[in-house]
């Protein structure tokens, strides 16, 4: 079997992904410059949001636009509990996550029976409902928002002090540690029966049901887990910015989240990390195209959808290399895609 080489290849990719996450974390956390702390925090937070959407769409096949709403519920819960009611940050976080999961069950109950366009609009309606409820609530500071707790303390490890306060290197490290934990967790799901069930449902729901895979049960699990990930992202966002307002959670945030997952490669575990780096890199860091950064990002998204719809990680390098070589002389002008499978496989190994 050829599975050995293929598996080795994928193992390498996973390794590359982990190395990249560690390098990013060390780079952004130690450089100390406020600009880089800003960029690093945003990369980690957007990678978390992207991972949340990637899990529910890339893995489970549900185009859920509610993820930003989950982030808002969690972020606001922590902000209200700490700033208004004097809770400690670390007591507020578990409650906020629990509330978000509860909310995701409600959204899931209403939406998971729907498919395609209807599911997308239903979840979008929930996300926007959350924003409107927040903007009309005195408790949540209406449209101006409220301050959130940012001085979340220090962890002492013997002689080492880990300062978690927002806008420090320690905070960036915390964000990346949480991101790494989420990525490891998604990897665990990927290899488990639950992951296979989600894959199956994404590919063919009828076939999955005929094999005993219960759609609602597994999708609800996927939804709840994705809500937890979005909640972590939302709480970090509110903590990092030191305040929270409905403006963060509108349609533009939904769009950015989708775009960075597509860019990195839907269904690839490290896709959202790459997507977040490119997104923040283009719009905030390198400032590619100057004030046209968002436009450049949008154009990049369109180009990828047209020419590499599987995203950056989905680009088949071997095939690109093969295309770059002069075509072998053949009698027929058969396009590559139309060739029978075994030939394509053997070509891939040769190249």
């Amino acid at each position, binding site marked *: 079997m050829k599975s050995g080489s293929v598996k080795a290849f994928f193992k390498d990719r996973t390794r590359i992904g982990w190395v990249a996450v560690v390098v990013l974390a060390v780079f952004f956390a130690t450089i100390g410059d406020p600009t880089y702390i800003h960029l690093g925090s945003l990369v980690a937070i957007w990678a978390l949001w992207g991972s949340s959407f990637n899990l529910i769409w890339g893995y489970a096949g549900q*185009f859920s636009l509610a993820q930003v709403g989950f982030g808002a519920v969690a972020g606001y819960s922590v902000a209200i509990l700490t700033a208004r009611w004097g809770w400690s940050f670390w007591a507020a976080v578990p409650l906020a996550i629990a509330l978000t999961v509860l909310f995701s069950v409600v959204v899931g109950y*209403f*939406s998971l029976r*729907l498919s395609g*366009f*209807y599911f*997308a*609009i*239903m979840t*979008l*309606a*929930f996300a*926007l*409902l959350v924003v*409107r*409820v927040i*903007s*009309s609530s005195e408790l949540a500071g209406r449209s101006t928002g409220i301050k959130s707790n940012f001085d979340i303390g220090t962890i002492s490890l013997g002689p080492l002090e880990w300062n978690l306060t927002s806008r420090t290197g320690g905070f960036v490290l915390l964000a990346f540690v949480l991101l790494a934990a989420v990525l490891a967790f998604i990897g665990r799901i990927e290899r488990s029966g639950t992951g296979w069930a989600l894959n199956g449902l994404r590919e063919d729901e009828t076939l999955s049901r005929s094999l005993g895979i219960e759609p609602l049960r597994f999708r609800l699990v996927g939804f709840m887990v994705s809500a937890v990930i979005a909640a972590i992202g939302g709480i970090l966002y509110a903590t990092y910015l030191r305040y929270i307002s409905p403006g963060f959670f*509108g*349609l*533009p945030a939904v*769009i950015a989240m*989708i*775009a960075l997952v*597509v860019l990195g490669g839907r269904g690839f575990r490290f896709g959202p990390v790459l997507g977040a780096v490119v997104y923040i890199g283009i719009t905030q860091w390198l400032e590619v195209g100057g*004030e*046209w*950064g*968002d*436009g450049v*990002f*949008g*154009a*990049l*998204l*369109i180009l990828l*959808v*047209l020419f590499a*719809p599987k995203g950056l990680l989905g680009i088949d390098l071997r095939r690109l290399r093969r295309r770059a070589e002069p075509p072998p002389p053949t009698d027929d002008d058969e396009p590559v895609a139309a060739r029978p499978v075994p030939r394509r496989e053997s070509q891939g190994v040769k190249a």
Partner: protein
Amino acid sequence: MSSELFLQALVNGLMLAALYALVALGLTLIFGLLDVVNFAHGQLILLGAYVLSSIVDIGANFWVALPLVVVGLVVLGVVLDMALFARVRDEPINGLLISLGLVAILENAFHVIYGPDLRRVAPPIDAVIDVAGIRISGNRLLVIVVTVFVLVALSYFLRRTRTGKAMRATAEADEAAGLMGIRVERIRHIAFAAGAGLAGLAGVLMATVYPIEPSLGEGPLIMGFAALILGGSRSPLGAVLGAVVIGMVQSFGTTYLSSSLADVLVFAFLILILFWRPQGLLRARLETAL
């Protein structure tokens, strides 16, 4: 006094309904014929409004600018469909993703060119009409009148003309339509162009009533989607009825509660409708009527 408030809410509701109907019709044409959920529709509305303000700024008359904007958007619609959306027909989700890319590009362009400030277009009608004791701004009435005119024209187009019939046939069953000699791709270009033109018209009309600002298109986009779903998602008549329902809920909600709560009502209503009747309100009524 309260009856005056009621009538005011009614007129505002009708105006919102008119705007949402234009948007929802465009979305319905594009979704019905191309299977694309066009998130860029909000930006096309905004494009109509901004371009109108620019044309009026260089001294042109509103009534000259209006057809220019609509024609411009129709042309843009054809170009976008041929250059982008036609390439991903087999994967509808990719059409949605392309529309997201367009959102980012247009939003950025508006920000660079027009900035975050409010822009106002001098209202074309400088009159307030007094009907039975309530004062209605002529411009709001204009929105309603123009929309009714467009709806009648569109209905005639879809029912009576060759192209309109071909469009309905394609929406019904595109393969069969293709076999019958209808040039399906051309029909799809026309559908996208018509949708873009309707968005441009909605933008122009909005600019006569509201100041133009970067988030002007977001509300109508969302409410347009809501109207589309209420109407059963592929029926033009349903989309218009959905728009009336949503316009009224929003207007009366805003009058008697608050604008945020009105939106909450609309979304809650949409969620419940999607839950109980994913096929939409109208389809259900037609079924029982038949």
